[in-house]
């Protein structure tokens, strides 16, 4: 039976972006299977139930987000869901735009309308999702110690660069 977690809906808050995932227990006690996708007001990306390793996806998101905050000349990052990908674009001051794309010729196909939100709101969504995923992994004995430590470290780094009044 897969374990499923979603970001809880806060009263009065309009959710624009939600990381959704499930973990499936395997014989060797490590997370080998699971699903990970993103829900927006317009739909699911790449699709509801996209098979992926949730830990690795969130490691990507925290790393890319940290790089954008920490390194002034980096304003874009790609998170792969091969052959789909999310492009993070922070070229607008204080905001981040997520583009939901599929590699194609001659240019990528846009699979969902892009979402723009305040940069630190996005950081909070990534960190909340990371905390829940870590908690679920640890309570259910999912994931390798190295992956868990890596996500935790990435989250600490991301939290360290967010201004105190925004965290």
């Amino acid at each position, binding site marked *: 039976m897969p374990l499923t977690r979603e970001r809880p809906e806060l009263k009065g808050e309009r959710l624009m972006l939600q990381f959704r995932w499930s973990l499936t227990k395997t014989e060797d006690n490590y997370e080998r299977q699971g*699903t990970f996708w993103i829900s927006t007001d317009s739909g*699911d990306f*790449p*699709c*509801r*139930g*996209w*098979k992926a390793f949730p830990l690795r996806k969130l490691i990507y998101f925290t790393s890319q987000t940290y790089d954008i905050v920490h390194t002034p000349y980096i304003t874009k990052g790609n998170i792969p869901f*091969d*052959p*789909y990908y999310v492009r993070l674009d922070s070229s607008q001051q204080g905001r981040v735009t997520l583009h939901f794309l*599929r*590699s*194609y*010729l*001659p240019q990528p*196909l846009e*699979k969902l309308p892009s979402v723009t939100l305040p940069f630190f709101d996005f950081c909070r969504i990534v960190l909340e999702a990371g905390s829940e995923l870590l908690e679920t992994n640890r309570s259910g004995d999912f994931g390798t110690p190295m992956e868990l430590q890596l996500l935790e470290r990435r989250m600490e780094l991301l939290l360290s660069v967010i201004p105190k009044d925004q965290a």
Partner: protein
Amino acid sequence: MNVIIDTIPVDGLPQKIFVDKKRVILVIPGANANSILLHDEARHLRCELSDMSVDIIWCYTVVGGVMVIGSAYGNHVYFIDISTLKIKQVLQLLREEDQSTSMFAILVTPDEKHVAIISELTFAITKWSGDIILDFRINMLSDRFLSLTNHSISFEDQSTEKTFTYFF
């Protein structure tokens, strides 16, 4: 624009394809591994397609009533008559075994008369019937797709920056 090109993740099945305002084709997982089923519930038509994993790429011409469909990592491309859901033609494509270099696209010429099917190792220009009018070996690891016109397709060898244009 009478041609629609889109993709469907296999994990996201079942999905609906709206081929016109009144007609819906349901895409559902097939009975066999890596197969999908195109199902027209209203007309009681079905068509099972094998070798469909990860991500489905489809292209549909409203005028001709033909769907060209394949998958991101598959070797087969199907030409389907949408009015009957019968397979008109199947092409077998050369694909790179290493899926990390996967590249597969179905494109249509601006005049919508021909279809270009491109993989990492080959391209084919076909009619909507599935008849091949031109095909060549390429290497998309070094060649970059440049353009598709009504009568030509161009690639650039990125190591030499030379452009290769094939006319049809």
